[in-house]
């Protein structure tokens, strides 16, 4: 992998890392499968690109955060007040957002902001090749620090407890609906920011860019937990909010590097017959998530089979004896 390709992968990994961290909050901490993400990601990108085209890139980033947060609020409202199941609530918001995103983009399926000033322009001019990476790094560091600090406040602790044991949360006089809403709003604000930064990074946004983002985010989160989460646990002997967030981001970077490598080597004889292209990455993401989530079940099934066979053998031995 060339330096440029590697840097590109790390940049993308960091941008999508915000999605992975958002899912860390909604999926891991709140224990909700929040499908709003596919919509709020595009919404953030659409808001960001439109304001960039209008010459206000920084306002675009702010708008991406706020619109993402609003999308999260709608899903939370459907779930907590209207009692719609969490998955369906996310699907409803996501589907509704598809129409809204097109409206935000002025009815066009894709919008470009090529050669316009973006938030990256200044950094690219000042710091050269590493300018983009620097800005993305700053975004990520600020957001992650704020999130980790928040999760260790009294309010943050209430949010964490909500996903863990809702009954206990109520009996500690915490409004579980409020903490759930807060969690979904923050998670989708991060996803919106990710979409907003990506749109300016690639100087374009299109209505389909959010498809599968939730699965990509989950895959990154899981890769991160398995590899970096365990590594960090081995190093510091405990799991904290900080190690969780860091492993999610590292997982996202690794995911992008894997994709880069697969695309680079897809002409090798061993892989050529598969004819892998970028569009196959969503399939790969789904497979990763399926394997990672079903792994404990498969492992236990294999173990149980071994035990059964062993029992059968010893029983058979007795009968024969």
């Amino acid at each position, binding site marked *: 992998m060339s330096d440029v390709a590697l840097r590109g992968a790390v940049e993308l990994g960091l941008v999508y890392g915000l999605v992975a961290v958002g899912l860390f909050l909604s999926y891991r901490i709140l224990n909700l499968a929040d499908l709003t993400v596919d919509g709020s990601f595009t919404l953030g990108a659409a808001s960001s690109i439109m304001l960039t085209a209008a010459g206000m890139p920084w306002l675009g980033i702010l708008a991406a955060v706020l619109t993402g947060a609003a999308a999260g609020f709608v899903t939370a409202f459907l779930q907590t007040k209207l009692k719609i199941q969490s998955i369906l609530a996310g699907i409803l918001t996501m589907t509704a957002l598809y129409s809204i995103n097109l409206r935000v983009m002025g009815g066009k399926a894709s919008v470009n902001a090529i050669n316009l000033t973006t938030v990256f322009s200044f950094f690219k001019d000042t710091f050269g090749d590493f300018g983009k990476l620097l800005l993305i790094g700053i975004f990520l560091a600020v957001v992650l620090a704020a999130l980790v600090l928040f999760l260790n406040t009294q309010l943050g*602790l209430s949010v964490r407890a909500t996903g863990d*044991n809702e*009954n*206990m949360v109520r*009996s*500690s006089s915490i409004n579980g609906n409020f903490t759930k809403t807060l969690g979904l709003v923050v998670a989708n604000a991060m996803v919106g920011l990710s979409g907003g930064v990506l749109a300016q990074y690639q100087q374009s946004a299109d209505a389909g860019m959010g498809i599968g983002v939730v699965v990509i985010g989950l895959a990154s989160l899981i890769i991160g937990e398995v590899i970096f989460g365990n590594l960090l646990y081995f190093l510091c002997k*405990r799991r904290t909010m900080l190690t969780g967030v860091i492993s999610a981001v590292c997982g996202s970077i690794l995911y992008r590097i894997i994709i880069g490598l697969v695309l680079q080597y897809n002409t090798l004889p061993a892989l050529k017959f598969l004819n892998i292209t970028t569009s196959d990455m969503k399939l790969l993401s789904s497979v990763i998530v399926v394997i990672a989530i079903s792994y404990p079940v498969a492992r236990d099934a294999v173990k149980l089979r071994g035990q059964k066979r062993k029992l059968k053998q010893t029983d058979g031995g007795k009968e024969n004896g």
Partner: protein
Amino acid sequence: MLELRELCKTFYAGTVNERKAIDHVNLTVPEGEFITLIGGNGAGKSTLLKLISGSYLPDSGSVTLSGKDVTYLPEHKRARNIGHLFQDPLMGTAPSMTIEENLSLAYLRGTHRSLAPATSRKNAAFFREKLRELDLGLEDRLKTRVGLLSGGQRQAITLLMATISTPKLLLLDEHTAALDPATADKVLALTRKIVRENTITTLMITHNIQSALDCGDRTLMMQQGKIILDLSGKERERMTVEKLLELFRQKSGEQLDNDRMLLS
């Protein structure tokens, strides 16, 4: 202190499964009284506690706590003044959070959750003190995840959480029934100690008639959603398990599920 007026709750109203769980219950509990509640399965004991805590809302009637009508107040708002323990020791604690974090959440009960740090050294010292009183060796394990503890330890922590900022009312729904006998005795002894030291008004459901008579100041017996027996004072002091079972037969015309009650 606690006042129930003509409280009614019917489940599956209008269907063939319609069941009157609570049927015009009236009850006045003076401040600091420790009541034990007995009765067969489906008598309405748990439902009564849930109506008081707000997990269920009644069809009619009213619940008044310290002179304030709380009949339709949401559960999390009522929880500021009410501690509620269940039979399942897993229900009261958040497993993936540490003992310290669980206690911190409970300690903040009734206050507004702010952006201040969730844990502090000062609180940790206080929690350690409180854990030492449990005498389960948990005082040095503040950073341990609650999910790693045994059922008895978790129930003891739940008890501590429910009482760490003293509630006006403590509801105990067979909170020792899922524990092994030795642990159950220990948790019950702890309960009595904490309730006595803080003079908390308490309602405790138990299937053990002996401990229903041993604990507290007053014993209520429920049957088909009604309170059919209300024992206190001298009458209660002279009561034995056998006499109580006999009384139950007379009052309800039914045999009490006494095997389970006597053996548990």
